[in-house]
């Protein structure tokens, strides 16, 4: 009996040892460039995590089918090792560690959300692993002096900056009165900082400055205050929950405000869930399919939208588009570096200056993309109640004219 036990323990010990060591493949094997990514496939970020993964996969397939990556005269294909970080920052950091030290990954793709990117960045930095991320916009990511972090998206503080500037412009250059409600997470607070900056520069006044709790589902108090003080602009940022709650309660409480600007309308599928009630809301977006940027792989936004919809059965939110763009950046950098040396790839990434279907990409010192402005779209509905998001700012890409001020509820 005892001997049997010892044998079982011994065999299982070997099995465990074997199973952990056998995964230590590596980074560039044969004709494959293996990238690593910890992504939220379960947990509270799982829907955006899946958008991110779909975006990555779409780009990998496209690049591979169009000839792969040419480095030093040889052609390589992309491949990605995914792990599920369960929407948990601690787990994400562990997985990054595992990808790098056990699986031997030498190049990383980012996770979903600023919080998780923040958890992973110190790890990739420690090992000198270049990471191109597409879903962490928090300003604090770019002020830590990270050398190996590159973000294809515009930083969070620019999200609603353009809305305030537009409001001021429409007000004849005079400052406006702003009411704002932001969730207390890294991202939303960064958006808030951006608004504070814009308000200061334009001489605008913040008259309501509410912080929304994480478990928010009732904004009635904030909105009652808005009703009482009649600001010129109402700004809301609290992820999907914030966007959905705001629209529901603004409609229910008949809050009249000349301009309503928010984030995450895309992910919240605002017009789908709220129909005509969401009309006239201004939404900050990293990308919109009607933008006329071009590249050789996805042609342009409209084509990307069509291809993605065909492949995954739903229209791509910007989270997917920016994730696809991350792969294009990697391919470009590998080819320019002409090597898989991490330092050389890092330097090539830093020197990136390209256009993708998603936008221009050029990294600043801190790693953020400075060559791509945010766009604002406005939800516009026709008489039949069919709603569409139309780009209204910046003017260069506008496909419709901004409707301002928002008609009063009594006139709708």
């Amino acid at each position, binding site marked *: 009996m005892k001997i049997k036990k010892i044998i079982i323990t011994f065999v299982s010990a070997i099995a465990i040892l074997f199973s952990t060591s056998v995964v230590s493949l590596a980074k560039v094997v044969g004709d494959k460039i293996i990238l690593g990514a910890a992504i939220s496939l*379960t*947990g*509270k*970020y*799982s*829907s*955006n995590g899946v958008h991110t993964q779909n975006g990555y996969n779409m780009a990998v397939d496209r690049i591979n089918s169009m000839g792969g990556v040419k480095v030093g005269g040889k052609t390589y294909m992309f491949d990605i090792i995914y792990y599920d970080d369960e*929407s948990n920052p601690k787990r994400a950091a562990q997985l990054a560690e595992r990808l790098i030290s056990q699986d031997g990954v030498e190049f990383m793709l980012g996770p979903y959300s600023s919080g998780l990117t923040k958890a992973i960045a110190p790890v990739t930095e420690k090992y000198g692993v270049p990471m191109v991320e597409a879903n962490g916009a928090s300003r604090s990511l770019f002020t830590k002096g990270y050398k190996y972090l590159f973000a294809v998206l515009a930083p969070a503080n620019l999200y609603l900056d353009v809305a305030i500037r537009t409001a001021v412009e429409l007000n004849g250059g005079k400052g406006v009165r702003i009411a704002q*409600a932001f969730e*207390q997470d890294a991202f939303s607070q960064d958006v808030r900082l951006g608004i504070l900056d814009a308000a200061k520069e334009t001489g605008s006044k913040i*008259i*309501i400055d*509410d*912080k*929304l*709790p994480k*478990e*928010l*589902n*009732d*904004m*009635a*108090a*904030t909105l*009652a*205050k808005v*009703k*009482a*003080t009649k600001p010129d602009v109402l700004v809301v940022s609290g*992820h*999907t*929950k914030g966007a*959905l*709650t705001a629209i*529901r*309660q603004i409609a*229910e*409480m*008949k809050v009249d405000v000349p301009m309503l600007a928010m984030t995450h309308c895309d*992910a*919240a*599928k605002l017009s789908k*869930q*709220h*129909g005509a009630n969401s009309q006239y809301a201004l939404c900050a977006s990293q990308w919109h399919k009607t933008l006329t940027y071009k590249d050789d792989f996805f042609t342009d936004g409209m084509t990307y939208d069509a291809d993605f919809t065909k492949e995954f059965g739903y229209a791509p939110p910007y989270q997917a588009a920016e994730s696809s763009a991350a792969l294009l950046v990697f391919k470009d950098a590998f080819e320019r570096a002409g090597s898989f040396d991490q330092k050389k790839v890092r330097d090539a990434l830093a020197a990136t200056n390209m256009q993708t279907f998603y936008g221009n990409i050029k990294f600043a010192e801190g790693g953020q993309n400075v060559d791509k402005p945010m766009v604002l779209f406005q939800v516009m509905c026709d008489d039949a109640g069919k709603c569409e998001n139309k780009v209204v700012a910046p003017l260069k890409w506008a496909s419709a004219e901004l409707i301002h001020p928002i008609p009063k509820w009594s006139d709708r």
Partner: protein
Amino acid sequence: MDFLIFQVPMLTVQAVLDGLLLGILFALIAYGMALQWGVMNIINIAQGDLVILGGYIAYFMYLYGIHPAWGVIVSPIIMYFVGVIIYKLVINKVVDRDLFISILATFGISILFMQLMNFAFGADVVLANSGYGTTMLFDNSVTLPNSKIFSAFISIVFAIGLVIYMKKSKLGRAIRATAQNARAAKILGVDTEKVYAATFGINAALCGVAGALISITFTIHPYMGLPYTIRSFMIVIVAGLGNLPGVAMSGMGLGVFEEFADYILGTEFRIGSVFLLLVLILVYRRFKLSKKREYLK
């Protein structure tokens, strides 16, 4: 600016009305918790998750083109069976153990439910639109969404219905008897096992009703259950077990308290103020209790 509520008198009216309507809904959830706490001596941490699950039932009806208000009928029926199944699988094994074990068990159920809902329904925030419109008072300066009024009304109907059921029906009497003295009830021929299962089922059904109402007034998300658990815990602590008018009063009180905390301290302190109140009340209770003990000595 902070005390806008005192400068604009209509905001006070708005806050009180909002708070009352919200509080009635909380009281319904708390009533379920008080019931099973009183009968089975179990603090159900998964209470809020049952609420959210009930909300998803209404949401799916809405998705399939049925008006979500029907959820207040369908959701409790389904949730009753969910409750009974949870009882048979888990709760009956911890029902006569100490409170700590049952808290652990229901905490486990809570985590399991969160993950399962996240897995099955996705992590998107969803809501069902009732299209009920708005009631305007005082020259439009106070607005009450009809969905909130509807919620409060339905909550009251269910609460009254349950009180009558508990008084008049055979099962209701058996439940009350078991709550008073389970052993005596058993000796006198009450099938306490069945009573426990029914109690847990009724609690889940009440959560189902509340969930359906929340889906049409607020939003539903797999991870949003905990605040409801905390609120109902709080209400029951204040009201005491088996005190239905107390639950209703403390529910409405909490609703109004939350609204005022929101206006005065800021939205970010809303849930925090509930926690703080809970701690204060527990400390106060403890203080009173220790005095009593000394007296007894």
